Every structure is written in C-alpha cells, then in structure tokens.
C-alpha cells in the first residue's frame, strides 16, 4: 500500500466574511453593487474602525494631555493606546519613534524641513527615484531650493522597475538623503528597499521610505528594513483621513528641531525661551486628530486579526486575474509590468481617454482612478497623459474584476 502525500491546500481566504465587515461594500452606485477598485487612493473602513471613532465621539471626546478630568484622561488613554498599536504594527523600537501627522505628505515635509534643511549644504545631493508620488518629490525640491542642494533622480526602466545597481551608482559622497517609495502608487512596483536602504546606510546616507502604498499590502518591519524614516497615511490602510505616521529612528528625531510650534510640543514657555517636550510630542504641536488616531489604532487591530499571508495571496490572485482578463481587450496596454507588484493595474486603451473610461465605469458602479496619479514624471516617462488604475484590497473579488473587464470592453466599443 502506498501513501499519497498531499500538498496542503492553500489557505482559503474568506472574502465574503471580510466583506461583511465593510458597510460601504453593501451599497449600490447608479443601481449597481459597488465594485470599489480605488483602494490606492483611499481604502474603505471596517465596522470596528467606524465604531472606534464613533465610540470616542459619543463617550470620550475631550482634549488630550491637558485635563485632569475623566474624559480627558480617557481620550488621552485611547490616543496613546493607538500609538502603542502602531509601534507593534511596523515593529518600531519604541513609542518615541511614532509621530502622528496628517498623513504621508506631512510626514515627508516634516523630515524635509526639520531633518534635511538644517543639515544640507550647497551641492549636497538628495537622491530619489523617477516613480515617486509628488509627495516624495516636491518637499525635496523645496528644501533643495532653500539650501542649494541638488535633487538627483534615479531612472526607472520600461517595466517600471527600479534597478538597485543603477541607484547605487548614483549614491555619491555628496548624497546626504535617499528617499524612495516602498511601493509605487502609479505602477504597483515593489521596490528593492531592503537592498537600497542597506546600500545607503553603508555610505552614511540618511534614508526615508514612503510606505503609503505598502502598509495596506504587506507586513512592514522598520527595524529589519533599517531605514531612518518611514511614512504612511491612515486612509490607505482602512482608517480615516487626516491621520498618518512618521516613524523616525529615535536618535535622529532626538536631534531634530521641532517643525511646528504651539501647544503640546513644549514643556515650559516664557518670553525668554521655551523648553521643548520629549519625543514624540515635540513633533505634535497643537491638538492632534484624536479621533483619527483612534480609528487608525482600530484599523491596525483589524489588520492584526486577519491572516495577512492569506490576504496577500488573495490580492496576488486578483492581480493575476486582472492581468488575464484585461489582456484580451484589443488595444489595451499595461503601464507598469514590474515582476514584483502589489494588486494594482494601470492601463490605457487605444482611442479611449482614461477620463471617459472613468465616467463609463462609474455608471456601472465600478470605482477606479483616472489621471496622472500625482506622479506626472511617471506619465511623462511612459508618454501618456493619464492612465486608468484599478487598485485592489483583500475585500475585492474575482467577480468585480470580471465586471471591470466587461465594462472596459463596452467603453472601447463605444469609442472605436
């Protein structure tokens, strides 16, 4: 008698169960069930995030860090508990390294102004890549202008990949800062950040990784990654808008001057001088987005409860399915064909402008993003004014992608 050794079946991901957690997925748009494929722009929130924000608003709202009364203490407790959740989420070394900001954009600006501006000298170089979101370009251009430093841009190739060796060749003794996306929002490319960060560190270059498009799709360990700064936004990881995170290595944050001045970031103020508060409060001037932070903490808790490996496998299966379903449409071309991608497809269709596509898909209840995706240099590189982009979350289904493909095909027929 022989024994058959069966491979273990792949862990199933229960999409239907996950979808029930997201109230918005039950609605219709123009009479069709919504197919929400614009997660790269902003993702939807599960019930527990909505409940956390609502619970705070209903029962605990008060200003934080400044009241002895019960509500203020409760609000402070909830806000700081959210910070602790984020420490675990990206494996930071301590809660001093988690600064709440308005989002990835504000986090990059904070680093540009508070870290880069005082240290950059004329002819120093800031190295970025060609596929960055404007949020990881413009703040560096601004600080370059302020300091006389130069912005150096590492190229991408026709697949939309960033070649590590090419970037390394651009790291010179003048390079002081290297900033790059973990995942491209316009192309879906996953960058070789581990290697790039390690190369930069070896050369004494400070590193910032823009994780806005990475955190919804993969486990991030900033300790293992070794970067100095890591930034992301809550609203792309199932939390509310207006809240995000700057992770910074404690020793660096310690040395940086505050960015904005005001309440909460001080210990004592007199007209002779002011003593700044300890980390992370030094960088959180004014009343912060308390409800947003609490919502973000709840989103992390939700993600912690998922089988992230299975969720990731499901997203990769969606990506494969999307490539197969869209590829058969005549005149459709993919923009961004990197070998390692998250669940995101950017494409153009001959004779159909992305904006018209967006309007037509919307009538079918399908939400995608059309435009330049705040990455105009990427559009220029691929010589397109805009693309259509479908970006997936683990709650998306194969059926939604079939609807996407059918709707794109209908639009093509209308215009050609």
């Amino acid at each position, binding site marked *: 008698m022989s024994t058959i050794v069966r491979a273990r079946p792949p862990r199933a991901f229960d999409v239907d169960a996950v979808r029930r957690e997201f109230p918005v997925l039950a609605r219709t748009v123009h009479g069709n069930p919504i197919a929400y494929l614009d997660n790269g722009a902003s993702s939807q929130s599960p019930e527990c995030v909505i409940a956390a924000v609502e619970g705070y608003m209903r029962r605990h709202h008060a200003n934080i860090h400044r009241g002895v009364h019960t509500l203020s203490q409760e609000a402070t407790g909830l806000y700081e508990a959210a910070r602790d959740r984020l420490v675990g989420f990206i494996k930071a070394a301590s809660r001093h390294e988690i600064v709440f900001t308005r989002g990835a954009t504000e986090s990059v600006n904070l680093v540009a102004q508070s870290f880069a501006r005082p240290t950059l000298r004329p002819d120093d170089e800031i190295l970025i890549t060609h596929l960055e979101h404007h949020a990881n370009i413009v703040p560096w251009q601004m600080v370059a202008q302020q300091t006389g430093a130069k912005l150096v841009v590492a190229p991408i190739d026709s697949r939309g990949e960033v070649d590590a060796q090419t970037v390394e060749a651009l790291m010179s003794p003048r390079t002081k800062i290297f900033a790059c996306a973990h995942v491209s929002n316009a192309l879906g490319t996953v960058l070789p950040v581990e290697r790039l960060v390690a190369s930069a560190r070896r050369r004494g270059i400070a590193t910032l990784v823009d994780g806005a498009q990475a955190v919804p799709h993969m486990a991030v360990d900033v300790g293992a990654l070794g970067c100095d700064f890591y930034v992301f936004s809550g609203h792309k990881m199932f939390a509310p808008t207006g809240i995000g995170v700057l992770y910074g290595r404690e020793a660096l944050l310690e040395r940086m001057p505050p960015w904005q001045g005001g309440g909460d970031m001080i210990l004592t103020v007199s007209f002779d001088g002011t003593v700044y508060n300890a980390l992370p409060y030094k960088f959180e001037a004014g009343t912060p987005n308390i409800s947003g932070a609490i919502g973000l903490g709840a989103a992390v808790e939700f993600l912690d409860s998922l089988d992230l490996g299975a969720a990731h496998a499901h997203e990769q299966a969606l990506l494969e399915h999307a490539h197969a379903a869209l590829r058969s449409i005549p005149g459709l071309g993919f923009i961004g064909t990197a070998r390692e991608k998250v669940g995101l497809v950017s494409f153009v269709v001959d*004779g159909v*402008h*992305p*904006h*018209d596509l967006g*309007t*037509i898909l919307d*009538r079918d209840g399908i939400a995608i993003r*059309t*435009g*330049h995706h705040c990455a*105009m240099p990427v*559009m220029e590189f691929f010589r397109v*004014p*805009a693309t259509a982009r479908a970006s997936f979350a683990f709650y998306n289904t194969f059926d939604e992608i079939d609807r996407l493909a059918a709707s794109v095909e209908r639009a093509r027929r*209308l*215009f050609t």
Partner: protein
Amino acid sequence: MQLQDLYRDVILDHNRHPRNFGPLPEASASIEGFNPLCGDRLTLRLRLVDDRVDDIRFEGQGCAISTASASLMTEAVKGKTRDEALALFDRVHRLLTDDSAEIDDAKLGKLAALSGVREFPARVKCASLCWHTLASALKSPAPLPGPSVSTE
C-alpha cells in the same frame, strides 16, 4: 441621466474626427489651456482679421468631451466677430454650469450636444477648457506665444 446623454453621436463623431485639428500658420494668437486635474492640454490658435475669427485650429490631448467640445467650438466660431464669439462663450458657459439654462437649439446648433455634460459635474471642466481658452484669447489677443489658461 444616461451615458448616452453625455456621449451623444455628435460628441463621439467629433472625438473620432476632430475638425480644425492641427497647426495654424500665420496665427495672430496662440494660447494654451491646461486642466491640471486630468492633465488635458490644448493649444488654440486663431487668426483675427478685422476683428473677425478668420481661422481657428486646435491641437492637444484630451478626453472625448474636451476634444469634441474644442472641435465643435472651432466650427461654431469661425467667421464670427469677436463680440459674437464672446456672446457664444457666455451661452455655452451657462449651458454647462446652470441647470436651469434653456437649451435653445436654434441659437446653439450642434453645440446643444454639450448639454448632457452638466449632469456630470466631474466632467464640466473637460468641456469648458477650450471655451475659457478662447475667451481669454479674444479678450486679450496676446502676441505669440500666448499666456496659459487653467481651469483651476
């Protein structure tokens, strides 16, 4: 509001075969329109003779709505005086933005095909870009190269 109201046959036709598309030698004004929201770019060139639009052509990249609107516009204003063209701009602007504006086929002619756009607020700028560009060219006929117009 149905999609067919937006993408009427006239619109589809002018998108597929834009009229007056291409460069215009001996233009008296050239002006760029830019919609930063979608990246649509349009260059409008016109030749005014005795305060009359003697010729007008456009070039650029845009969606069906902006291409068709520009194509229809060039047809509509060719031969018109500056004041007549500006009056038409006002009428089309109302048509695109004012839900209660009457759709007077007699005055609008083929341009009435643009009336579906106002039911799609996200697309109004696509249709109005070329018209704003025209208005600014007519209000201040600038020497080449002209200034830039933005819908923002």
